């Protein structure tokens, strides 16, 4: 479903992705972890071309993302993206936030878009917050609206860029719960996160990145019990203190 073939990316002089090879199957949940600056956010931002790759191939279904003629509007409509900082539209209510893209990109009639928006917001546990503005919601609630905004486009893939890193600890679980449910429904997901509990419990594979390279990728049982690379071991020893 998603395939990276020798993907390279530079920010000026900085080589942030150094030949990534990766295949993600449909309905797979892949967790990507690694120290900050390792290129994990860049990796998923390339998938819907928030960042452009400079070398290699990146193919989604049959669409070539690396091709400058690719129909990005169509592709992006199929891929939900959840940001660390939520990035909700502050001038719109929760319901308006989730219905904007369906109405403007998919040309869904307003009534239908709102029905669907209500349904999805209910699904993420925000049935009573439809008409609240982002500033009136807690961080966890905002992030759930952001997930709902992605889901309202009926995407085939959902990408999460450290979705719980900006949240207070007591709000992390409500967001992870929504993500667990999504995984159970068979959504294809790539999740950049340090929530190793989530990785262990929900993911099919865990990938470790460092200095722009994909060091190791394995099912969670194996990844946590018998990491192969020294760098992975070191990283895990640092974050698995609890």
């Amino acid at each position, binding site marked *: 479903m998603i395939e990276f073939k020798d993907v390279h990316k530079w920010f000026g002089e900085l080589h942030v992705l150094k030949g990534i090879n990766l295949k993600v199957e449909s309905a797979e949940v892949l967790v990507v972890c690694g120290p900050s600056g390792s290129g994990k956010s860049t990796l998923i931002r390339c998938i*819907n071309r*928030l960042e452009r790759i400079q070398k290699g191939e990146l193919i989604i279904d049959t669409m070539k993302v690396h091709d400058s003629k690719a129909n*990005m*509007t*169509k592709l*992006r*409509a199929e*891929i*939900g*993206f959840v*940001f660390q*900082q939520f*990035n*909700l*539209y*502050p*001038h719109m209510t929760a319901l308006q936030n989730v219905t*904007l*893209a369906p109405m*403007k*990109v998919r040309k869904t009639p307003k009534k239908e878009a709102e029905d669907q928006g209500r349904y999805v917001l209910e699904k993420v546990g925000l049935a009573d917050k439809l008409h609240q*503005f*982002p*500033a*009136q919601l807690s961080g966890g609630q905002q992030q759930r609206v*952001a997930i709902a*905004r*992605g889901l309202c*486009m009926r995407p085939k893939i959902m990408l999460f860029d450290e979705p719980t890193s900006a949240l207070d600890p007591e709000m992390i679980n409500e967001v992870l719960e929504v993500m667990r449910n999504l995984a159970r429904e068979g959504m294809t997901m790539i999740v950049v996160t340090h929530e190793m509990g989530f990785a262990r419990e929900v993911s099919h594979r865990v990938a470790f990145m460092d200095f722009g390279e994909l060091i190791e990728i394995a099912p969670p049982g194996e990844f946590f019990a018998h990491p192969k690379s020294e760098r992975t071991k070191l990283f895990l020893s640092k974050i698995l203190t609890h």
Partner: protein
Amino acid sequence: MWGFYIEQLIHSLPFFLKGLWMTIAVSGLSLLAGTVIGFIWGIVRASRSRFAKPLIGAWVDVIRGTPFLVQIFIIFFLFPEIGIQLEAFPAAVIALTNLAACFICEIVAAGILSVPLGQKEAATSTGLNWFQQLRYVIMPQSMRVVLPPLVGQYVLLIKDSSVVSAIGVSDVTRVGWLTVQRIPQGLLVFGLVAVLYFVICYPLIQLSNRLEKRMSVGYTRGKE
């Protein structure tokens, strides 16, 4: 003595009102056109366009770095050189429109750049195209930053319109010049001119203040 002059001044009041009307016409037309052009330039200036952006930047610098009086003379005397007869009125409107567009362009560009990049990324990631992003996500948010100084700029431009009297447009300033030759009481005559400008500018100043207060509350309410 003053009583006599005041009486004379009251007699020439229709003349002043005509001048006021001319000031309103020149400023109104210029602000309208200047706002439209200024928004377009501002959007380009905040974009990543490689050609148009520096071009507009350079033009804005030239206009901001030269006196309006000189600009208006150049426009008034330039067009006949290239074979176009231009009346004082359209020359004034062109010059003031250009000046307005340059200042408004800067305000709009600053407003657009004040919207966090994440907003654009969020809109991009859901498949909204460039225009839809601008229309539904970026512009509504940048208006909070744009509106108060925009209205403030209108006030400055209305006052700058007094310069068009130099090429013979019979605006309220020129009416003052003409009147003071008959009624040799500069203080009185230009006092009246000042009052007339103030009457149109003051509501705008109030509006700008009110917008500033309203916009600064905005949507951070309820959480900080």
